[in-house]
């Protein structure tokens, strides 16, 4: 063992460096590569143009999610452009021998939900995908990050990627979370403190008792949104919670391989005295259920707080004013009581079973508000099955909600699930950019509990008053 203490990040990164280029990036070997229909077609086209092959097809996994309908998935996809992308994925994966969980496959779902669910994501891996929320997989102690299409082509053709080594940041949250405060609130709080660009250039490790006590679903929610403060990715050291989650999943190691893996995985943590370029400490007990009021995920407040002024927030006044004008809000207004037209629960941020359990816990015995349209979209077929098996489906239906079929849906509104212009949506997804959920749509990011409270009251409501 070397005497110099190293961080979790260093351990995983260093074990994957094929070559370090002086005054340039490192060449990193990629263990797992996820692809989907939207960012892969041009990469495959590039391979063909250059006459290159896929070097390790068994390390790449494809699922269709971004552009799939969330109703009537058994019917042909109506939009010809979407159908064409899905067909391209099917043809490309089959001609290169890549596993493909397309529409209708029982394993189909959002890429960052199905990877972990099937044991494809394992501690200490390097994982990339042409989707910025690949950071989700960091919950398992992986270096996982989103890449562009040229990089997808790079990984297909060489199994490597070229990355400058990022700086390291550790974010510690200790203390007991209040009732009604979920992992989503923790990460929205962190981003509101650091701003949407506060971690650009860094790779984040989340540490402290709040994360240690979190479920894997919760850790995935947190790591998922690392990109929203500009970080390349975020990771959490694997522990018994991680190992218990993985054990027995389809592609998880078994028998002797499991024991060997476990021995290795237990070394994956930051050593005492490991150094970080930046470190932050927050008190978990002071975090409230959060909600965003603006057009980037850093523009969030505790739900009982007033919308801040541009001066309080700092940064450019004109951009702040533009954001509030888009949202139809003013400085110093109360978030509580604002009318809500749509509620979306789903996405790779909050589309896992725990999120639907939380949603159902508020909805149970109540009715959907008349003025609200709700889209309830599981992250995968497995999640959908759990929703039915656990009786959550019945609670939802009794309250007047309908369950849709898995996919990215209104997270990025590429399919028909678009929030109409000017309407307000409380959404459990990860981005509130202008038009993200449809041209002119106004997004309020929040936890499944806040979404549920909005869905049954028709306005922004503190979920703590309902639980």
């Amino acid at each position: 063992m070397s005497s110099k203490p190293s961080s979790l990040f260093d351990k995983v990164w260093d074990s994957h460096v094929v070559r370090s280029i002086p005054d340039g990036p490192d060449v990193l070997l990629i263990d797992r590569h996820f692809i989907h229909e939207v960012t892969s077609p041009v990469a495959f086209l590039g391979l063909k143009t250059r006459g290159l092959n896929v070097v390790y097809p068994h390390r790449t996994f494809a699922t269709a999610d971004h552009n799939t309908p969330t109703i009537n998935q058994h019917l042909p996809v109506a939009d010809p452009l979407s159908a064409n992308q899905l067909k391209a994925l099917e043809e490309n994966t089959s001609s290169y021998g890549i596993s493909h969980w397309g529409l209708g496959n029982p394993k189909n779902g959002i890429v960052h939900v199905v990877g972990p669910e099937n044991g494809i994501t394992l501690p200490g891996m390097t994982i990339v995908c042409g989707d910025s929320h690949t950071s989700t997989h960091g919950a398992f102690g992986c270096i996982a990050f989103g890449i562009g299409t040229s990089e997808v082509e790079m990984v297909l053709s060489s199994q490597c990627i070229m990355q400058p080594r990022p700086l390291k940041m550790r974010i510690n949250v200790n203390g007991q979370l209040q009732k009604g405060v979920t992992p989503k609130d923790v990460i929205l709080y962190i981003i509101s403190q650091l701003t949407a660009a506060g971690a650009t250039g860094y790779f984040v490790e989340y540490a402290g008792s709040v994360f240690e006590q979190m479920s894997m679903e919760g850790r995935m929610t947190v790591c998922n949104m690392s990109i929203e403060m500009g970080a390349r990715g975020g990771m959490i050291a694997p522990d018994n919670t991680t190992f218990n989650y993985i054990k027995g999943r389809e592609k998880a190691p078994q028998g002797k391989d499991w024991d060997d893996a476990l021995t290795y995985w237990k070394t994956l943590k930051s050593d005492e005295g490991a150094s970080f370029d930046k470190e932050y400490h927050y008190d978990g007990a002071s975090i409230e259920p959060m909600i965003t009021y603006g057009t980037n995920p850093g523009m969030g407040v505790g739900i009982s707080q007033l919308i801040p002024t541009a001066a309080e927030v700092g940064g450019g006044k004109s951009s702040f004013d533009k954001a509030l004008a888009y949202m139809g809000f003013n400085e110093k207004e109360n978030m509580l009581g604002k009318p809500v037209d749509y509620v979306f629960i789903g996405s790779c941020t909050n589309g896992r079973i725990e999120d639907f359990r939380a949603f159902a816990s508020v909805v149970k015995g109540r009715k959907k508000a008349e003025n609200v349209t709700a889209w309830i979209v599981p992250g995968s077929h497995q999640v959908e099955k759990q929703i039915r098996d656990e009786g959550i489906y019945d609670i939802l239906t009794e309250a007047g909600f309908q369950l849709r079929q898995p996919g990215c849906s209104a997270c990025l509104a590429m399919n028909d699930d678009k929030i109409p212009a000017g309407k307000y949506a409380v959404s459990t997804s990860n981005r509130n950019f202008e038009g993200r959920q449809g041209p002119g749509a106004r997004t309020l990011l929040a936890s499944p509990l806040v979404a549920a409270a909005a869905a049954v009251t028709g306005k922004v409501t503190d979920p703590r008053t309902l639980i």
Partner: protein
Amino acid sequence: MAYDQFTVLKSTAVPLPIENVDTDQIIPARFLKATKREGFGDNLFRDWRYNNDDTPKQDFVLNNPIYSGKILVGGRNFGCGSSREHAAWAVYDYGFRCVVSSFFADIFKNNSMNIGILPVQVSDDFLDNIFKAIEANPSTELEINLPNQTITLLATGEQESFQINGYKKHNLMNGFDDIDYLQDMKEEIKVFAEKSRY
């Protein structure tokens, strides 16, 4: 060779003094349905550029004929958000070869360099001066000199140097990309991959 070589670019610039310009603004998700890299420039900044009935919004800078050029100057934290390379394609396809800002989001910066756009990061003050100079005179020219790593406001001679790693600089100046580089080290990768854990 993957794209045109980049050495010295002298051009007028299009100002977009907005912070946190995210990739959903650069190219909204509904335009990501293509399976080829074509036509993205038409939808660059779609929702800022066009009304719902597809008529141009007169107050948006790309619709104002007094501004043109191969350089886009954006506010702080340009390109944040998604990993969609389509955003960089749209910028390139529209005709920009260089984006200047005082801060870039990581993935956008990588994606840009991978397709031959040079992201030039300047100080907040210099950025401010560029915006002021263009406001005062829209035909103000900027010179981006990659070999010397400098950006110059030609009217005043005011200059700043910018950072870029030697590897990327070499690539951009020669029109090489990472895929070319990795193909050259295939054997080394194979040896490494075969002894890797996963």
